[in-house]
Structures are given as C-alpha cells and as structure tokens.
C-alpha cells in the first residue's frame, strides 16, 4: 500500500490505537495502581504496602530531623605524596589510544580525570574514522569499572576464581606443556604486530601450536572468495565515499559489518546535500529480508527471502555480465516474486548507467556463502570498481576468521587430539558457536584449558585456568587494522585487578627471558617498543630516530605508512558457481539472524549502557525480540502477522533448537520472514548480561564450505502468552501526533489538548504538524519551496504576539544552537551513549523503562514514511530544544528552569521541587523525572532502584562503578527533573580555556558530547552569533526546519530535511 504523505512510528500510531492516543496526550504514563500492587501482575517486585508507606514517612521525618540537628561532617582533602607532573587535579588529560575488542576497532581519545578514564572521544586525527565513534566504544569505559571482572589468575570454579599467583600459574602451565604439545590459541582476528611476534616466540617453543581466529559474527565467505579471486585472504579497502551507487545484499555496513564507523563516515560524505538545487547524493539499494540498520538508511529496498539472496545476487550478476560481456552463470530456481525480479533489473540499470556515466559503484554483500561473494567480486570487477571503490592497497585486517578452522578445531577437541587450549580476546565459542555445547563437552577432556577473558563468560566457565588480560584502557597494545596503518593502545589507568597483558603471558609461557619480571605492564611496553623498532620503524623515512618516531606515533595514537601500489589482479572465474549458491526455499517460513549495533556478537552483554540503549529500529531494550511483519487488512487497520502484538510470546523452532521469544512488530519485513538478533541469551555474563533475551546461536547451521549461515527455516507457534516484562520505548514520549477528532471529524493534534478552534491562521489553531520533513532528491527543489512557504506562514503566525521578540536578546554574546542533518543521521546510537557517559545519566533497568521512566536526555526517534510494506526510515535525535520561548519555563513555580543570555534553557536541580509542570508543558517531551533514587545520590537511600534482580545494592552504589561518573556534572537526586543541557560543562570549559589563553573562541573549542560522538557528522553544535560556524551555515540553509515551529517555541535545534534518492522503478514495483 502506498502512502507517501503519512509519517508514522508504529502500528498503534497508524491505527489510531485508543491507548496510544490517550498516552500521547499525557507526559506521564501511569500503570493502573491495581496492576502495580497486585502480586501476580507486578513485575517490579514491589513489596511495599500502605503501612510501609507510613513507616517510611515516619522514618523520613525522623531522619530529616536528625539530619538537621547533625554537625556538618568532617571532610578530608587528600593530596598526592608525589604529584605527577602531567596531572593537575581538576583538569582532564586526553590520551590517544584504540578501542580494540575482537574485530571491533576504533581510534579513540580517552579522557581521564585524576587518573581515571571517564569518557571516550573519537580521534579526529585518524584517517580511518575522522573522530567518529560507536555506541560500543562509548560504553567501553563502563566495562572497565565492571565489578564482575575476573580479578586474579587462578583455578576457575564456575564463575569465580581460586586465586594463585602468576608465577604459580606459569609454573603449572610449564609443567603441563612439552615441546610436542599441541596448543591451540583461539582468539579474535590477530592484527596486533606485537602479539603476532609474541606468538612466534611461543611457536618456537611449542612448534605444534596454532592460532585459530574466531569471530562469532564472521565474514568467512568474503575472505575465502577473495582468496580464490585475488589470492588475498583479506577484506579489501572499501571506499563508500567514492561510490555513487551502492547495491547492498544484507551487509550491515552502517551498523555492524566489518568497520561500520569508517564506512558510515565515508558513506555519509556522499549523502549530505550541499546545494538543494543540485542534490548530488549517492543511491543505496538494499536487498534484504528484514529491516536492518543499513537497510533503513537505503534509498530503495527490495524485499527478498533470506534463502533467495544468492539467487538475487546471481541474477544481478548475470544482468551485469550480459551487459558488460562477462561470463554468466547458469541458474535454476525462481525468485519469490515479480517484485524481486524487477528490483534486480532496476539495480542492474542503476549500476550500468553509473558505469556508462563514468560514475563509480559498489556492490557489497554480507552473505556468508563463498560462491555468492565470488559473484559479487566478479560484478565489481566487471563494473571496474577495483581500484576506485574497492582497493587492495590498504586492506582491512580486522576480520580474519575462517569458520571452517573453528569447526575443525571443535572436531579436534571432541576427539581429544589437543593438549592445551587458550581462549584469548574474550572469545566465547561455547556460547556463540552453533556447536558450542559440543565444544563445552570436549573441553572437559583437555588437560590444560585457559581463558584470558576479562569478564567471566560461558567459555571461561568451561575452562580450568584463568589468566585474565587487562581491559584495553589499562594495557599496552598495538594494532594494524589496515595494512600500513599502525595504531596504539595505551594504558590510561593502572590495572584495577591482577591482570596480565596477553603479550607478557605468551612470552612467559614460551620462557622468554625477563618475562617473569614483576611489572608485566612495563614488560609489555618494552616488548611492543622493540617490535616497532624492528618492524615498523625501518619501513618509514619520515623520522630519523626511533625515539622521535615512537613519541610522535604515541602522541597521535597511530602511524600510517605511505600507500604502496599493490598489484592485485582479478584472477577468478565464475564457472560452476551457479550451483554453489544457497538454493532458495520456495515455501515455508524463514528466519534471518542479525547482529545489533549495541550487543554485537554478545560480548557486550554485561554493559548496562548498551543493554538500555533502545534497538534503533524496534526500539526494545534489555531483550532481543522476534521481528515479525505487519499486514494491512485492506481497510483501516494494520496488524501484526498472525495477529500477534508487541510483547506476545511465541515459540520458534528449527531442526536444532526450540526457544520461546517475545515478538515485536516491524515494518519493511518480507512476508513469511521473521528476524531475530544474535548476541543475547547469555548464561554466564555478570549481573546485567545473564538471562537477557534468548540465545539463537544454536539455531545457526554450517554450509558445505564450513561457513556459518545466518538464516534458517523456522516454525513459529501461535501466541503462547504475554511477556509482562516487555519494554520498548517505541510509543514513549511521542509528540506531534495528529488524529481525527471524534466530534468534529477534523484532524487535530492529539498531544495538545488546549486547541483553539478558531480558524486557520491563528496561533494554536489546527495545523497539521510535521516533525519530519523529507523529500526525494528528484523533488527536492519543490519540497524546499514548500517548506519555505510553510515556514513563512509559521513565522507570520508567530509574529502575531503581544510579547516582544527575543531577537535583541540573543543576537549578542554567544547563542548556542544545534543542527541535525537528517540525511546523515543513520540511527547508530553513538550520540545517545555518549550523552549517558558525559552527563551521568543513570541506568534504570527494564521494569522502569516499561513504566516510561527511561532517563536518557537524548532519544533517537525513528519514523517511517512512504509505503507501508517497505517504508523509508528517518531517525531524529530529539533532545531539549532550548526554546527561546520555552513553555517549560513559564510554568515552573520556583524558577528552577529559566533562560540564560546564551540561549540555554537552564535546569537547576537544587532548586527543583519536582512539580513536573515543566515536563507536562514540554511539546517535545524531552524532560525526565527522577522517580527513584537511580544514582543513589540521596543522603537517605529510601527509594533506590535496583536495576538487576537479586542485587544486594543498587547499581550505582558501588564505588567501582561510580568511578565512571563525570565529576563536572551533578549527580541528580530523586524528585528532580533533568534534561539535556547542551553539555553546558563543555561550553563553560571551552569558554574558560579561550579566556585564560586570551584569545577569541574557536569553533573547535566547544562541542557537545553527541556532536563529537557522531560518526557521520550529522550533529553540529556551535555559536550562531558567529557566522563562520557550521551550525550558522546550517541554520541559514533553506533545507533546515524547526520541529513544531508553528507553536512559537523558537527552538534552538534545527533539523535539515531528510533527502533520499529513490530508484523510481523500485518504488513503482509496489504499486
């Protein structure tokens, strides 16, 4: 069904669901009291009753009296004994380092205060990401302070460790190993020059040892295909910033595929419209079966069944080959529908047109079938993309694992052919491999099994010895993420626990001299230095002495050798590949498995910041829910498939396993297809990760090449029940909703009750509110004119006011504003986690989110528009709009929220008395109320919130966890409102720096956490009274609009229209 005018968030919205409409009128959602208090309904575990309330009341009064009578406590000021030169208490130090976790790599700057890391920033110098970050990297600082970390080496007992010393451990290992021992090291892709070198030392001592790279979410087929076609078992250097047409077969390159931040940066460069009259933006056509993050950012989507991806690739390949004179492959089998057939033709047309026009294109696929990847390679070769959008000069090293190797290892383990096995890098195949259970059984037969994981996990529990590695923020390390690009990992804090660097461990076990020294960190440092001196330093000519080379590289965080010409030529052939692609299953239900931006392959499960970050698309938290398609009944209603609703429980089963899952409706799904995220359902994962969601790894299967296949046939039962803990922020804080007035039949704004029904042209009268503006590139000029006209009308309305304007007030001094380019926002959530990290935003837990009590200052609203069955998606980061005419300020009885001369809507917590009038009056619904003492900041802990089941003390009460708090931002107590402050602490810091350095303020001095975290540069922050800043330029851009401009809030956050570049042929397919 086609509907280009509508913008919606979900089914309830489209159907005008009564409950939804009712809730959107209210700022505060309240569960019925009976529900809350009755035992069987309550999920919160609320045990208090009225008598408890009276008791607490009495205690509270008494406590307050006692507190008032108390003397002020004696506080201590503890200085250093020997103050390090580099540290000035109260001033942050930044260190260039790299976030490395398996195949996740990101150049970062680590902000430390008084010697403790508190925030991750992107490294703007790095040519890979240019300062972009991801939600995972932003949240990694919390993992450092995880109190469930493995605290010492020793014998593993379940999830705990019987402590022994490193010397004893080394001795025990030495005793068990002989020169002939078959040792296997299972780790992530090894792209660290120093670990490689250390492993070579190890191999000298134990020649029968082998390094097995294992990535739970692998790109094995891509590597194998490249080996066959180019002789390179590697991922090439993709250049999305060169491609005008991107055809994507299920590669989630903006979310989780290989190097998403790098690709997002590149891709977004081709997506920002500089001149609306000539919108030259790239086009992405996505062939996928469910709505992935990358697919949601595609211009046109072609829905295919998971099993027919190979056929679709092959058909496209043949189209291209026929046109370009290459050899085609013979195929049998049919595409599931005419639409797909047309989609393939349309994609081929785009590719060939681009090729004819001398433009560049790129075909990528996330397929884990070698033949399919070879066809993709051939297509790219025929289109002449090698050398331009795909290069071999700086190939990517972060993904190296071959599924078959791991599979073979499990066979070896089962057969008991191995003497020792070491699991490094936190790899967790017992959980994440389809044959994990077999591996677990096999491990008990192995004499020596070691886990170096920093957090207990399933594999750790199945091993006998723990040799914990330090967190990346406390250790030395290096990496070569791309050939010729060397990066550093440097420690920013002393190791919190008794851990030892993998380099030192490997060298100790290989009996290298000096490795038994006391200071393992120093030893690792010296070793890395020596490796660089030997391997990296000689290949450069920029620096004369190693010392200056080293110091410079360490300061920058990386060193890049000049590009060297790489003579890699296509030497593949496609003959016979037609039979090797996955054969489409003609009927029956299929399921696609995918990786999410927050949970990854499951190694981030114990990070509450990521668990509570809503899924960008289905917007659920603390769970992986089965995405099911929605169906239009042909009338007024859109329902979930099988009439399933959000939060219903069904059981899914395939030949390998059966699981009960919660369902969530999702747009843009192929019929007869469901989708479910991997990375959930951890069993051994500390307090926040264990038991969240379901583990679907056992449902995966291996194809004939040994590659893991991320789809399967599936049976789904009927509704089995309702998940009472289901938490999704989908319908929370909705605004700008319009609906039919039951009395007059007119379209009204349901989220604003007080509507003046005079007539058009009066302030507050019925206007159709659009908070998302979008246009197709072909109609952009018209859309911009329409917008201009509309804004003129709004501004005319706003001028009809008795009150004086604010122009004179805010056109002097500083005036801070934010702009968001909706075309560049990909919904990755890095900004949201950055905001949490910067502003001490608490974790509230699943049951609190369910009550609409999430505390995030910045939410990313996801809207759909266009066709109901395959809509386009717009992500809108929504934070406090810092309105110059703020509705919240007028209603505060104690003036706790008011306006600053710099245009900031200020929130003063110590003045707030918690009436919540402001939140009620906020049209954008961005104010958050501290219902409970989430951060344990109160003097008397009465209403502290326990995030996890069975916790003895609240999450933030632990001293170790509290080390992550930003000391420049107040930790809010119960009963006050909070909201985005435009990172006022950063504004103040930047201004102060300029003032003390006696210079004018520069644009680079001040930016908000969200803007700095954004991988695509969609968010810009700055002073609009300075005409040089990017934000001023955005403000003056005719594509910029303001959400709810007609209600005269005079907001300070400008949104730049979302522009897509649809392929008209594919859009018409659905008609």
């Amino acid at each position, binding site marked *: 069904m086609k509907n280009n005018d509508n913008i919606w968030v979900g089914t309830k919205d489209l159907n005008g669901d009564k409950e939804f409409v009712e809730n959107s009128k209210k700022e505060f959602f309240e569960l019925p009291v009976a529900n809350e208090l009755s035992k069987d309904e309550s999920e919160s575990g609320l045990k208090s009753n009225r008598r408890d309330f009276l008791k607490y009341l009495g205690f509270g009064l008494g406590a307050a009296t006692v507190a*008032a009578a108390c003397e*002020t406590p*004696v*506080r*201590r*000021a*503890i*200085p*250093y*004994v*020997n*103050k390090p030169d580099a540290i*000035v*208490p*109260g*001033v942050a130090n930044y260190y260039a380092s790299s976030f490395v976790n398996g195949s996740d790599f990101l150049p970062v700057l680590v902000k430390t205060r008084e010697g403790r890391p508190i925030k991750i920033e992107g490294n703007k110098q790095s040519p890979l990401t240019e300062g972009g970050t991801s939600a995972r990297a932003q949240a990694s600082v919390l993992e450092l302070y995880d109190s469930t970390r493995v605290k010492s080496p020793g014998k593993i007992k379940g999830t705990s460790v019987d402590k022994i010393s490193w010397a004893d451990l080394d001795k025990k290992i030495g005793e068990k190993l002989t020169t002939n021992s078959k040792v296997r090291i299972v780790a992530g892709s090894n792209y660290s020059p120093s670990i490689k070198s250390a492993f070579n030392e190890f191999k000298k001592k134990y020649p029968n040892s082998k390094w097995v790279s294992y990535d739970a979410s692998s790109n094995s087929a891509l590597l194998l295909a490249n080996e066959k076609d180019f002789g390179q078992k590697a991922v090439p250097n993709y250049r999305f910033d060169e491609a005008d047409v991107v055809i994507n077969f299920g590669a989630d390159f903006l979310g989780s595929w290989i190097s998403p931040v790098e690709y997002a940066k590149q891709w977004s460069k081709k997506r920002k419209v500089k001149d609306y009259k000539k919108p030259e933006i790239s086009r992405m056509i996505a062939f996928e079966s469910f709505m992935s993050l990358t697919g949601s950012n595609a211009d046109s989507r072609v829905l295919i069944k998971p099993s027919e991806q190979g056929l679709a690739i092959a058909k496209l390949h043949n189209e291209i080959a026929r046109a370009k004179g290459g050899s085609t492959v013979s195929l049998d089998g049919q595409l599931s529908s005419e639409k797909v057939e047309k989609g393939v033709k349309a994609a081929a047309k785009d590719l060939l047109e681009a090729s004819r026009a001398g433009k560049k294109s790129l075909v990528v696929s996330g397929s884990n079938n070698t033949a399919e990847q070879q066809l993709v390679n051939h297509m790219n070769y025929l289109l002449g993309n090698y050398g331009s959008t795909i290069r071999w000069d700086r190939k990517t090293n972060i993904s190296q694992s071959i599924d078959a190797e791991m599979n073979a290892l499990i066979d070896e383990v089962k057969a008991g052919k191995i003497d020792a096995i070491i699991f490094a890098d936190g790899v967790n195949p017992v959980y994440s491999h389809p044959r994990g259970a077999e591996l677990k059984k096999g491990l008990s037969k192995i004499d020596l099994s070691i886990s170096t994981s920093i957090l207990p996990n399933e594999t750790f529990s199945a091993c006998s010895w723990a040799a914990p590695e330090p967190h990346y923020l406390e250790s030395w390390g290096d990496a070569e993420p791309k050939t010729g690009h060397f990066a550093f990992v440097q420690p920013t804090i002393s190791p919190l626990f008794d851990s030892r660097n993998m380099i030192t461990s490997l060298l100790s076990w290989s009996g290298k001299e000096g490795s038994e020294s006391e200071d393992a960190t120093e030893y690792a440092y010296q070793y890395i230095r020596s490796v660089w001196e030997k391997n990296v330093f000689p290949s450069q000519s920029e620096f004369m002495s190693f010392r200056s080379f080293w110091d410079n590289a360490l300061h920058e965080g990386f060193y890049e050798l000049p590009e060297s010409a790489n003579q890699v030529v296509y030497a593949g052939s496609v003959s016979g590949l037609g039979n090797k692609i996955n054969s489409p299953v003609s009927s029956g239900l299929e399921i696609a498995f995918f990786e999410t931006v927050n949970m990854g392959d499951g190694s981030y499960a114990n990070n509450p910041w990521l668990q509570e970050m809503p899924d960008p698309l289905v917007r659920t938290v603390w769970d992986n829910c089965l995405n099911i398609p929605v169906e239009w009944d042909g009338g007024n209603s859109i329902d979930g498939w099988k009439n399933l609703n959000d939060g219903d429980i069904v059981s899914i089963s395939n030949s390998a396993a059966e699981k009960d899952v919660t369902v969530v409706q999702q747009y843009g799904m192929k019929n007869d297809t469901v989708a479910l995220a991997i990375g959930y359902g951890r069993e051994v994962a500390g307090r926040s990760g264990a038991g969240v969601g379901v583990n679907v790894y056992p449902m995966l299967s291996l194809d004939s090449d040994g590659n893991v296949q991320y789809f399967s046939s599936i049976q789904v039962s009927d509704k089995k029940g309702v998940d009472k803990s289901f938490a999704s922020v989908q319908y929370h804080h909705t605004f700008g909703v319009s609906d039919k007035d039951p009395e007059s039949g007119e379209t009204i704004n349901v989220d604003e009750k007080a509507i003046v029904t005079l007539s058009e042209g009066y302030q507050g009268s019925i206007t159709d509110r659009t908070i998302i503006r979008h246009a197709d590139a072909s109609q952009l000029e018209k859309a911009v004119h329409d917008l201009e006209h509309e804004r003129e009308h709004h501004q005319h309305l706003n001028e009809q006011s008795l009150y004086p304007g604010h122009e004179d007030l805010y056109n*002097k*001094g*500083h005036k801070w504003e934010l702009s968001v380019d909706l075309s560049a926002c990909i919904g990755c959530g890095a900004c949201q986690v950055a905001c949490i990290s910067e502003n001490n935003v608490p974790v509230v837990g699943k049951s609190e989110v369910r009550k609409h009590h999430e505390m995030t200052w910045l939410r990313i609203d996801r809207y759909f528009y266009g066709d109901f069955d395959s809509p386009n998606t717009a992500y809108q980061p929504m934070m406090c709009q810092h309105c110059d005419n703020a509705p919240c300020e007028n209603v505060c009885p104690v003036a706790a929220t*008011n306006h*600053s*001369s*710099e245009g*900031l809507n*200020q*929130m*003063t*917590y*110590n*003045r707030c008395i918690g009436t919540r009038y402001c939140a009620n009056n906020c049209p954008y619904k961005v104010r958050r109320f501290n219902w409970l003492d989430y951060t344990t*900041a109160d003097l008397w802990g009465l209403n502290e919130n326990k995030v996890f089941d069975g916790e003895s003390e609240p999450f933030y009460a632990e001293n170790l966890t509290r080390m992550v708090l930003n000391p*420049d*931002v*107040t*930790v809010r107590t119960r009963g006050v409102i909070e909201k985005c*402050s435009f990172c*006022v*602490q950063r504004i*103040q810091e930047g*201004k*102060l720096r*300029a*003032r*003390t350095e*006696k*210079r*004018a*303020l520069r644009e680079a001095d001040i930016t908000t956490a969200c803007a700095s975290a954004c991988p695509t540069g969609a968010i810009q922050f700055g*002073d609009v*009274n*300075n005409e040089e800043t990017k934000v001023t330029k955005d403000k003056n851009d005719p594509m910029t609009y303001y959400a709810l401009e007609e209600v005269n809030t005079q907001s300070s956050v400008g949104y730049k229209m979302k522009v897509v570049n649809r392929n008209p042929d594919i859009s018409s397919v659905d008609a």
Partner: protein
Amino acid sequence: MNYKLLSLCVFLLTFSLTGLTLHAQEGEESESGTAAVDLDAGKSLFRSQCASCHNKNMKDDLTGPALGGTQERWAEYPREDLYTWIRYSQRMISDGHPRATELWGTWKPTVMNNFPNLTDQEIENVLAYIQGVYEGTYPPKAAGEEVAAVDVGTEEDSSNTFLFITLALILFILSFVLARIIGVLNAIARAKAEGTVAPSRSIWQVLTSKSVVGLLIFALVVVGGYTTVNNAINLGRQQGYAPQQPIKFSHETHAGLHKIDCQYCHDGARRSKHSVIPAANTCMNCHRAIKKGSKYGTQELTKVFASIGYDPINDTYIEDYEEMSNEEIADIYKKWIEAEYVKDNELDIIDEEGKLVRDDQWDEIVSSLTNEQKESVAGPIEWVRIHNMPDHVYFNHAQHVTSGQVECEQCHGAVEEMEVLAQYAPLSMGWCINCHRQSEVKGFQDNPYYHKEFEHYHNELQNGEREKVTVEDIGGLECQKCHY
C-alpha cells in the same frame, strides 16, 4: 485610673523624644569641635610611619620614646622647631638645639629616620592623634551618657535599629492607649444607652482573652518560623570554620613571615577548578633544607618526612618506603627526633626525659598520619577540608584567579595572619551573587575573547552609555554558570 495611664504614656513619649533631640544637637557640636585636624588621617599616618619604633599606647618607650605629651615638652620652643625635629632630627642635633641635644643624650645611638615629605598639616594630624590617644579622647567615646539610649549614636549601624525599636515601642504604646480609650468610650456609651455600668475586665482577664492568646501564638509562629528558616539557610555553612589539622601548618609563618606566594603551593588555582592542596613533595622543596620548625622543632616537620619517606639524617629518600611497616618507619624517625633532642640540649647521650619527649612526639605523629582507613604512616597526609561546597555547585579557581584576576585574599581573607586557617567568607550563594553583581570584568578591553561576541558592550563603553561591564552583564548571575 485610665487618665493616669494616658498621662504617663504621654510623659514617657515626650521624654524619649526630648532625649533624641538632645542627642542630635550634641552630635553636631562634637563634630564642629574637631574640624581643624583629622585624627583618623593622623592614625593611619602613625600606623604606617611611626608605629614601627614608637609605642601605640603613647605611654611606654619602645625603640623610640613614648610620644605622649610631646607637644607640652616642646611648648617652650616655636612650633616650627617641632616640625623640623620630626623631619630632620639629626640635623637639629648637630645644630645644637637644646631640646634636641637633651633627647640625643638619652637615646643615642638610636637615630630617628628623616621624614622630609611630611607636610605641616600631616604632622599636626599625627600630633593631634598622639595627644588624643594619650589623653584617652581618641577614639571618641559617646557624647551623652545620662540617657542610655543615646549611647548608640556613635555607631551608625545600630542607630537605625534603635530608632526602629523606639518607634515600634511608641507605636505600640500609642495603639494600646488608643485601644483603651476606645474601650472606655464604648463602655461609657453602653452605660449611657443601657443605663448600667458593665464591670471592667481585670488585667488577668484581658491577658487570658482569646484575642491576646491568639496574638501571642501568632507571634510565636512568626518568630519561630523566621528563626527556623534562618537556621535552615545557615545549615552546612561554615564561616569561621577552623579545624585542627593533622600538621600544625601555619599560614602566618609561610605566607605572612616568609611571604611565600599562595600559588607556589596552591598551584592548581591558576589552571584548574581546584586550588590543590600541595603534595608532600612540594613541602620538600624547602624543607629538605629547613628540617626543623621554629615553633615546634621536629614535632610537625617530621610528619611531612614520614609521609613521603625522607630520611633527614642522611638527606635521602627511602627506597620502597610504602612497603615498610610502621615499626621500621618509627625506628628511622625516632632516631632523628632523638638526635635533634641531644643536639638542642647539648647532651652526649639521650636522657630519660628525652626518651619521653621522643616517644610522645612519635605517638603524636602516628596519630596524625593514620586513621581507620589508612593504617600506614607512609602515604598522603589527610588534611581536613575547610572550604566545602555542596555537590551541586561548580566552582572553578582558574576562572576567578586567572581569567577574573581576583586576589586570593578577597575570598580567603588575610591568610597571612592566620596561624590556624579559618574559612573567611560565608561561601553562601548570596555572597557569590553579590560579588558577581559588583565586580567588573577584568581585561574586558584587552582580552580578545571579549572582542567579537561582546562588541555591543565595547560600543556602549565608547559611547559613554556604559561605565563598566560587570560579571552580571556577561551572564554571571545565571543558574548554569555554577549549577550543572
């Protein structure tokens, strides 16, 4: 009886008013009497120029003679001679002036400084001040002492309060009297109308009447509420807080006597939000040379050595000091205290008393450097924090010291005079705000930061529309300058 009361009130009223008038006249008189010389100017001159040699009480000798009665002693010579004596005393002695020669005989070889720059008027001021102090007329006392109330007149602050109290009292009496009159008149009117005389209520009845009791309760609530609110506002404020510190560190000695710059030790003040309590190694910059204090000897300084692990006998830092037990540490420092005791008392070997002194000192050092959480003597010195801000206040020293160029003394008071450091300022929000209202932005003209965005202020300054730019003008009163 009622008329008696009335006349008493009228009498009292008249009396008080007369008293006030009387006082006002006297005030004028005393002012006109001392118009020729300025005693206060004399005082400040005396303090700056003379007080280092001449006693402040004018009655006792110091380096120089007591100055009381100078004018009488010089009365037989021309006034100019006294001026010359003060300006050029040595010249006058060599000229052989009899009075000068007499004084030189008593006081030689002490030479009085020359003061060629003093004007005649200034000398007169000083002389008048000297005489005033000598005779006890300066500082001036209350003029009229017969009515106690008038005494308040000398201090301006309380004079208003007194006036208010008097006025309130008068008004109260007046209303009381009027109420009585009305009551009596009503009673008469009633008596006339009804023909009977209502029994008048006794004082007791009046006092226990509903309206009086109600009024009292109301007053109690108002006063109670007022006190509660005031006390609540003061909760957590610690002006004057001067706790005992683990080391008897004297700011008077360091900042006052030795004039060490504040920011030598508090080196964070210019570049950080914290002024920073100096690390023990900062102390060692000087105290490696000065190993014993002038006041406490080895007692206090040994605490610094014991914290950082400095061996004062061998002038070395002790290796692996953190790993040493308290007993091992005790051996090192007891030896040091002992050695110094022996040296001070010129003994060959420590005596019994010395042993006692040594052990007492060490016990005190251990108790100062350790607590429940910190068992080892080694490690940081845990000072008691004096300036405590609530968590919701963001204060940045660099902002004030470097950017705002505020002197440390402005908020911390005369630290150089504090033996034990005390909190000088109330650190209340009102106090902050007040300063932000009044303070001018330093460097507004020179600092390029203020040029572009604050052009409008520069224009106004140039046009003369504006005298100065205060912190308030650039947003210094806004909530989120200090609360975020």
